[in-house]
């Protein structure tokens, strides 16, 4: 370990991108507010560099600044950005246009909005070539080649289509093809896979990985998913409040973090098969400081468990960590801006007093032959087919599958938001439920509530938190007036909301607090069952951990049952007692969490497990699902999964509809393969 005063001075000439001491502010009502506080890093040609951090830490701003795509109120107040030796901050408008056309490209988070919906793919991709001076006919040919390059099998057909006719993964391929049109020196990817399913994400990431070998472009990858960064990047910079607090070889940083913030982020993740019965998740107290806050010493001091007077009074030095192989490459040096990297082992451990929940208590809810068919343009679209499930008292049932697999439909049918088809039976305790929520007596409504994915949409923005909670209490329990106020207070205390929060409107609260309010509302009437539809997918990992801890505490105290929908297998593994895997509205596999993760697996489960990029390295096996999830209006014959299955047996799977077989107690699989031939994969989560 060596201590130096400044960040390593990068050699500007050899780097594709080098950002030097970049300072940037957003002007809000005329007052510049600091967002980037001296960011320095460099990316060599052919190298992939990742930036991670919570939302609001400045990573996207840095990415946009690299191409000088700044909002009108963004001002670069200091430092330089060199791309191929040219200073982007000093370019004229004309030079900047040339630079963006020929030297740098960007891929955005949402491919749907990056493509012009009214222009056919062929023309859009050709345009990317016309701009760099390729003529008509040749531009079209080059566009075709470009699409082939991003592994689009049938480019001519795709070129005739409009963006909305392509799936999200396909759209992102097209966007990448356009970004590579000018053979850029620098490719900036801003959360390129965030909106995509894990299976599609895996495909896109595979593509970027192969393309890296074909081009010499330097890649700057922004992602909040640490697993994506680890699997894609050579080096990584951890950003906090507009400063890079730790940088180094990606594997090294994630294996042996040397900054309390990096360590905190990693510990927040449910990893390595940790379960709620073993321990609570680690959380980082507090939130990111607001932009423009003066942070004269260590930027992380307010949230750091190790902070002492030294941290409050002196700017932390850049501390180089020499660990084995990285020492050979000076540019891959691992450094951390911390006074106390020798004290990292003293970081407090999360609360380990998390006694196991009672599993498999009395059955609260039984679903029998539940189907839901939507009518669309005169066609029947079966979104849910013959679902059968039990939910025990105090049990968490995880529900996984790609988008379009019917998870949300199942939850909504259960709650009565969608009326299930005739013949479906949903039983609560001993009585059958009405199909429609509005026909159910208050008692039944009170028994089942929901926590939605997006708290912004779930809370009425013109109501105060108090009104939201009080109204729910009144409607579900009939308690009114002062009595109801008392309940609001008890409830908010249980969810660690303070009286001050009660008088605020949702927009004044952070994402995590909003989700707490939404959870408080769901628990207002002492429900038996709470449906959680991706409750943490819109949140940062540190906040996610706090919400998951809260959910598991509430469950312990109230013995509420959860139906927990999530695409994040790590989260499901942490929280769920049992798991159901769905595909195209049908149950494919059901079992306890251990059975699902240890195998033997349904081929679909196997593919899902192997698609997850993990901070702990790659899964042992890589199974990629090709193609898209078929339309439920026209499901494949035989086994609905056969069109994408890597174990497809022609003449069998496409003819016979497989029965659900119980291969061990509680573990049911819908597959024609004999049990001994089912795969077992080592899940990376």
């Amino acid at each position: 370990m060596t201590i130096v005063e400044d960040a390593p001075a990068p050699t500007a000439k050899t780097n594709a991108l080098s950002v030097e001491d970049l300072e940037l502010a957003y002007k809000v009502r005329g007052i510049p507010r600091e967002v980037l506080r001296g960011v320095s890093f460099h990316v060599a040609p052919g190298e992939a560099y990742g930036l991670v951090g919570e939302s609001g830490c400045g990573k996207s701003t840095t990415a946009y600044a690299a191409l000088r795509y700044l909002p009108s109120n963004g001002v670069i107040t200091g430092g330089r950005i060199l791309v191929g030796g040219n200073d982007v901050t000093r370019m004229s408008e004309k030079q900047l246009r040339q630079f963006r056309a020929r030297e740098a490209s960007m891929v955005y988070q949402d491919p749907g909005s990056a493509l012009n919906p009214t222009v056919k793919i062929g023309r859009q991709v050709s345009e990317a070539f016309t701009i760099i001076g390729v003529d008509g006919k040749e531009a079209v040919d080059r566009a075709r080649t470009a699409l082939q390059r991003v592994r689009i099998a049938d480019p001519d057909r795709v070129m005739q289509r409009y963006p909305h006719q392509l799936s999200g993964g396909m759209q992102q391929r097209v966007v990448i093809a356009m970004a590579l049109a000018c053979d850029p020196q620098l490719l900036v990817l801003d959360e390129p896979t965030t909106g995509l399913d894990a299976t599609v994400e895996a495909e896109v990431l595979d593509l970027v990985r192969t393309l890296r070998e074909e081009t010499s472009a330097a890649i700057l990858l922004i992602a909040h998913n640490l697993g994506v960064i680890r699997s894609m990047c050579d080096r990584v910079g951890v950003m906090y409040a507009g400063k890079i607090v730790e940088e180094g070889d990606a594997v090294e940083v994630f294996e042996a973090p040397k900054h309390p913030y990096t360590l905190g982020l990693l510990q927040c993740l449910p990893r390595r098969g940790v379960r709620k019965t073993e321990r609570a998740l680690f959380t980082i107290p507090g939130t990111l400081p607001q932009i423009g806050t003066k942070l004269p010493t260590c930027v992380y001091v307010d949230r750091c468990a190790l902070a002492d007077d030294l941290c409050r009074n002196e700017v932390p030095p850049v501390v180089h960590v020499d660990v084995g192989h990285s020492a050979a490459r000076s540019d891959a040096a691992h450094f951390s801006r911390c006074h106390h990297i020798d004290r990292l082992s003293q970081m407090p451990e999360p609360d380990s007093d998390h006694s196991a929940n009672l599993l498999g208590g009395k059955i609260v809810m039984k679903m029998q032959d539940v189907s839901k068919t939507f009518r669309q343009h005169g066609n029947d679209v079966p979104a849910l087919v013959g679902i059968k499930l039990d939910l025990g008292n105090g049990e968490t049932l995880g529900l996984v599958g790609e988008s379009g697999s019917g998870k949300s439909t199942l939850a909504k049918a259960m709650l009565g938001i969608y009326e299930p088809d005739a013949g479906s039976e949903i039983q609560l305790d001993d009585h059958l439920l009405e199909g429609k929520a509005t026909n159910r007596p208050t008692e039944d409504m009170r028994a089942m509530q929901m926590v939605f994915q997006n708290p912004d949409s779930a809370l009425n923005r013109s109501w105060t938190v108090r009104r939201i909670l009080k109204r729910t209490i009144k409607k579900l329990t009939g308690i009114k007036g002062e009595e109801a106020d008392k309940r609001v207070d008890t409830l908010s205390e249980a969810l660690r909301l303070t009286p001050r929060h009660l008088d605020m409107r949702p927009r004044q609260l952070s994402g995590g607090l909003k989700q707490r309010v939404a959870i408080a509302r769901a628990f207002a009437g002492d429900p038996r069952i709470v449906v959680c539809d991706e409750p943490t997918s819109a949140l940062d990992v540190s906040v996610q951990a706090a919400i998951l801890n809260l959910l598991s505490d509430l469950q312990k105290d109230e013995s509420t049952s959860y139906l927990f929908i999530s695409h994040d297998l790590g989260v499901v593994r942490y929280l769920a007692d049992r798991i159901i895997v769905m595909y195209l509205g049908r149950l494919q596999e059901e079992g306890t969490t251990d059975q699902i993760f240890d195998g033997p697996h349904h081929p679909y489960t196997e593919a899902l497990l192997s698609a997850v990029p993990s901070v702990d390295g790659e899964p042992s096996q890589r199974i990629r699902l090709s193609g898209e999830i078929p339309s439920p209006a026209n499901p494949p014959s035989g086994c609905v999964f056969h069109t994408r299955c890597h174990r497809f047996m022609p003449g069998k799977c496409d003819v016979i509809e497989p029965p659900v077989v119980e291969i061990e107690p509680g573990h049911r699989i819908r597959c024609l393969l004999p049990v001994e031939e089912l795969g077992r994969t080592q899940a990376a989560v």
Partner: protein
Amino acid sequence: MSMNVPPPDASGAAAAVEIEAADAAGDDVIGEAGPDPRVPYDMRVERRQAGRERRRLLLRRPAFIIGVLIILAWIVCGVFGDKITPYDPINEFDTSSLSPRAGHLMGTDQLGRDVLSRVMAGARDVLIVAPIAATLSVIFGAFLGLLMGYFRGWVDEILSRLVEVLLSIPVVLMALLITATLGSSRIVVIGTVAVLFTPIVTRTVRAAVLSEAQLDYVTSARLRGEKSLFVMTREILPNIRSTILVEYTVRIGYAVFTVATLSFLGAGIQPPSPDWGLAVSDTYQLIPAGQWWPTLFPALAIASVVVATNLVADSIEAALAA
């Protein structure tokens, strides 16, 4: 995206960043850590601050100030009428058809009445009729829009067709039909304009309700057994207030315009009122004879009110969006 033309979302993405940054700074978002105990906190203070901020934004817009001043000037004219006009607008006759000069800044009309006095006094009728008509159309339109956007299905189908029918009849034809049948009193004019504008407001409100009703808080309200009326009026309505407010301001402007059109066609306000539309209608035939002043000044008055309300509407919209 590497191209000379910025990609469709480049500015969008940048704008999003901008808004995010502004939001983060403006709303004093409270973090996970909870309140800062060192800072005493009062909800009302904050509410006042937000209101003050919005007013400040409005007052900083010259367009808003100009619009308000014009409207205020006309309201003063309308309220005080012949008490502040230099001459009696109806019963005082001088030499007819005098061109603008000292003593008669806007000249006199073919009967020798002072045009300036008539233009000032002419504000009264239209400033009573137009806002009432606009208010009625917004009330009906909001009600229908809420029903259609919330219930959708057959309610929406039927009402949508009805709205389309109303919208497909030419405005003038419709207005003439109504006034020909019911005569032309102030009340009929108000009713006519309200009927004409209701479908337009309905469409705007319906669109706003449609997107609002898809949000999860509406589902959540249903899951606790709220009645539809409650969800519409207490949950959804407060969130589309700004849309309705902007639509209201715009409608007032157009109502002025439409009332003037009706008067011009003889189907609106009746003589001897100095109403602007009426004045234009009475005098436009004199333009070929070189007497432009009795027509031009009332016409400018109409235009000024319409422009002023639109300036105010735009400013409000911008301030609400900020």
